[in-house]
């Protein structure tokens, strides 16, 4: 059984799907590991590191795709790449099914067993495979550092001989994993942090990090969907939210938005007219940029200055911290793969919650219900 790790060619993608450490794990589980030359370079892992760990260095990307039984990646494959995948092989990467309809069709055609690291259930047991958690955590942390670097002001309170500097006001919208980490990091830097989220149980979590939770008064607590994800919310709610957000934003120095709704475009939390009332020098870090952005003005992978307000739409923030991002992602994927390997052979047990949850095509069928629904809708 060959497991292959190709180099990532996407722009800004510095990560790699396996580290020398995870290569060792695969070899211990009885797999043969092929890796594309230079795959780890941008994550600061050298070819030599991989060879030392026992991997075979392959210089052509094509060779990997056509020969491997299991192919693991960070980003989804290109159409071309998916076309040369070996039939009936296993493919694993971060993969938003609603964005890559034609790739899925190829997968079905080739009877690829495809896993998306996006779909790992958010249960306690699956935590070690939960790439969304590990990568969001990095995004939340980095967003604060990048935001603070953009800011023309200090984050902490300082009382100096040349005057007292008030602490920066940080507002975190959407307090999932990324949001919570953003709260924690801003707090560490001494800023005044407020946060909010549609899921009411998040209040306690925000407070457990020492920040203030802003509540939108609402009658029915209907922001929660299945599996811990937020549903798109009612119109009335949205209105109230917009008002409160607008007021808070106008006073904030740094706004970090992380609101996502799986399988849908990110909700717009900051419209243009809200940005208009922000102070000059304020910064918006939009972590939802990849899914359309939580701010109306966000442009993906660009940092724009709109009337003195800086809006950073960097999509792949974990890619900016590639060493640890790859280490964690590599560990997540390795945990998934060793989970379904039995004596060096993959055994796909669709009864298993984690397997069935994270698989989306198998033996020519789409197995993931929301994806089926999406295909049905057209």
């Amino acid at each position, binding site marked *: 059984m060959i497991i292959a790790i190709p180099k990532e060619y996407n722009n800004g993608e510095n990560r790699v799907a396996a580290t020398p450490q995870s290569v060792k794990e695969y070899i211990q589980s009885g797999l043969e590991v092929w890796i594309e030359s230079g795959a780890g370079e941008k994550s600061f892992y050298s070819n030599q590191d991989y060879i030392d760990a026992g991997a075979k260095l392959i210089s052509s990307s094509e060779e990997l795709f056509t020969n491997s039984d299991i192919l693991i990646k960070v980003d989804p494959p290109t159409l071309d790449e998916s076309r040369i995948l070996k039939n009936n092989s296993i493919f694993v990467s971060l993969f938003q099914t609603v964005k890559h309809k034609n790739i899925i069709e190829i997968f079905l055609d080739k009877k690829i067993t495809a896993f998306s690291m996006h779909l790992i259930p958010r249960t*306690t047991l699956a*935590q*070690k495979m939960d790439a969304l958690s590990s990568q969001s*955590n990095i995004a939340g942390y980095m967003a604060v550092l990048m935001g603070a670097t953009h800011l023309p002001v200090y984050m902490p309170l300082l009382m100096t001989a040349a005057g007292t500097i008030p602490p920066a006001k940080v507002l975190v919208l959407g307090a999932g*994993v990324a949001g919570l980490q953003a709260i*924690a990091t801003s707090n560490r830097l001494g800023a005044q942090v407020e946060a909010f989220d549609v899921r009411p149980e998040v209040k306690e*979590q925000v407070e*457990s*990090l020492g920040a203030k939770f802003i509540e939108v008064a609402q009658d029915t607590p209907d922001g929660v969907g299945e599996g811990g994800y937020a549903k798109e919310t009612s119109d009335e709610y949205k209105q109230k939210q917009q008002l409160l957000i607008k007021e808070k934003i106008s006073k904030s120095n740094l706004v970090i938005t992380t609101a996502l709704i799986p399988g849908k475009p990110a909700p717009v939390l900051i419209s243009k007219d809200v940005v208009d009332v922000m102070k000059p020098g304020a910064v918006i870090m939009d972590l939802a940029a990849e899914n359309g952005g939580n701010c109306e003005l966000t442009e993906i992978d660009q940092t724009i200055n709109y009337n003195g307000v800086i809006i950073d739409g960097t999509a792949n923030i974990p890619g900016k911290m590639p060493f640890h991002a790859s280490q964690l992602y590599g560990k997540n994927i390795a945990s998934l793969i060793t989970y379904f390997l039995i004596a060096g052979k993959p055994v796909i047990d669709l009864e298993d919650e984690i397997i069935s949850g994270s698989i989306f095509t198998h033996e020519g069928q789409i197995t993931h219900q929301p994806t089926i629904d999406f295909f049905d809708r057209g």
Partner: protein
Amino acid sequence: MDKYVNLFYVIAAIFFILGIKKLSHPKTARSGNALAAFGMFIAIISTLVTYTALDYLYIFAGILIGSIIGVIFAQKVEMTAMPQMVAIFNGFGGGASSLVASAEFLSSPDSTYFIVCISVFIGSLTFTGSFVAFGKLQGFISGKPITFKGQQILNALLVLVALLLIIAPNLVFDSNIHSGNLSAFFVVIILALLLGIGLTIPIGGADMPVVISLLNSYSGVAAASTGFVLMNNGLIISGALVGASGLILTNIMCKGMNRSLANVIFGAVGSEQDSTSGSDGKQINIKSYSTEETAMILDAAEKVIVVPGYGLAVAQAQHAVREIADFLENKGKTVLYAIHPVAGRMPGHMNVLLAEANISYDKLKDLDEINPEFEDCDVAMVLGANDVVNPAARHDTSSPIYGMPILNVDKSRTVMINKRTMNPGFAGIQNELFGYDNSIMVFGDAKDMLTDLLKDLKEL
């Protein structure tokens, strides 16, 4: 009666005083007991030497028999049965006082009727009360409170009638003083015996230690009143000592349980240990400890491992933890922190939390490092953690977290778990750990609990 015997009684009393004082400090307790025993030895020997016309045969026979029984009892009893043993001994003491007073009264009925009655009343009450307490603890009588309607009224009636008979026997009985007193005397005994049962039976097994302590105080009073009957300084001083200090001890014990004495005696609640049934219907029997008791356990520990969880963050108790740890470390104990990879609600949550309290990185251990350490850990302090210490993950294949590596806190000598309720954690599953033999629960908000715990630790 030689006048010097009283001097020896005073000396004996001094030994008792010092003994009791030392008994209330852990380090000196044993020597305190020895001192008290020596005081008793002085009292007995000087009595034997001074009083003349004693019936030595009976006395020595009595002492021999009593000693043999006492030694056997004391040797045989299991450690867990100590409280009931004390109850029996106490009953015997009360009985003895009452017998002595009776003997004096019966042989010379002009000895003050009033004081004899007091002595007999309290002694007899102690006698039966102690035996009921013993029965409850030993399981001969149901440990549950036995109550019926009008119970309190009946008890009150018993007391009133007895008091009437003690104060004015002749209002009720024969106006002939002697025979009237005699009849009243017997009735008082019977009333007291009944009252002992009536007062003790409605109290639950869990509250028995308090009751025994109270009865102990009574038996002191009984001895003192017998002292008045015999005009014997030794009995008076020692009896008064035990009576007063026993009452204080009883009060301390009540405070420790956060109850008033009245509540214990008349509450008739005497609830049993909590038992909670989880959502899956399984029954878990837990032991709920006060922070004071927990402090004692920590005090005896050498190595403590703190297991922080989401609840610690919710309570924002990071500084409180640090204060406790500092205190323990200053006492020469080792304190480590076991960080489970998924503790909290975001990756690294516990790290952020403990960093806020400036807890040094080298004390934070991850799962692989810390798990072997639990084997020789005295106390694992689980603070607001739940799923990450659930042993079901190790053995219960049906558990949704089966297979997740957990912190093996159950391997340590004592597991102290703090949370607010018996509610489950994030995964929504019950935790059998709470019912383990070496587990103790300390309920409350983590910050409040730790603050109290620190206070109690400092007060030891």
